[in-house]
């Protein structure tokens, strides 16, 4: 296990850098996480992150792109615009969650 410093806070992460402690995340931290991967968060981003957090608490795993799209009514195309190139992984990272494990 690794502890890294993000926004002057000690944060537990896995070998790749994804957060491992659900409760160490808050919306302020999300801004820093997003900035680190070149994304400036808007309300549209934040609404998706909130959905991901709630769904993870409920389901015990990170929603896949298809699930995010279906459950929030956000078109897949839009998800690719908001979190370019690797939307599922980037959303999970900024939401402080593990990578999705589902294939679809």
């Amino acid at each position: 296990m690794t502890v890294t410093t993000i926004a002057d806070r000690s944060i537990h992460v896995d070998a790749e850098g994804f957060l491992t402690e659900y409760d160490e995340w808050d919306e302020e931290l999300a801004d820093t996480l997003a900035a680190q991967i070149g994304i400036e968060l808007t309300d549209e981003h934040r609404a998706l992150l909130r959905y991901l957090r709630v769904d993870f608490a409920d389901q015990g795993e990170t929603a896949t792109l298809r699930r995010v799209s279906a459950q929030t009514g956000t078109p897949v195309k839009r998800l690719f615009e908001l979190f370019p190139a690797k939307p599922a992984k980037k959303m999970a990272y900024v939401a402080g969650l593990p990578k999705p494990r589902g294939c679809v």
Partner: protein
Amino acid sequence: MTTQQTAPLVPDFGADGSGRKLAIICSKGNLDMAYPGLVLANAALGEGVEVHMFFTFWGFDMINKKTMGNLKFTPIGNTATHMPQGLGGLPGMTHLATSQMKKAIAELDVPEVPEFLQQVVDSGGHLWACRMSADMQHLTEENLYDEVEGIISAADFIELTEGAQVIFI
């Protein structure tokens, strides 16, 4: 053991436009043979890879408006079902096996073929139809799924997937 790292550890999401390209050739029209290509295409697109799917021979059933929503699975000749082979030929067996497979796929929240193709397109994937297969089956673009970008020759496909990794299904 816990290691403390002062510099932020940030996942490597790779540079945009890394140039990785994947060509997936779909030559089968059975329900169970449609999914591998779709799942791999979707996964690659989610990793930022440029994806081109080429539908040829029986793979045309995946993009033919008449058949794409009605692909079937049959246990005949498939020892991996671990059923006595004679059972596969009984009347209604293909229908039963198809229903069961569709149910199992739906339970995983994986879409049916037409919706899955749309997801691939929405994620930036490209769909191409094989010229020879279209001619053999007397089909035109009118008969094919609207998101198919064109009916192209094998040579055209080879040209546009220059440098791509290839998966043949």
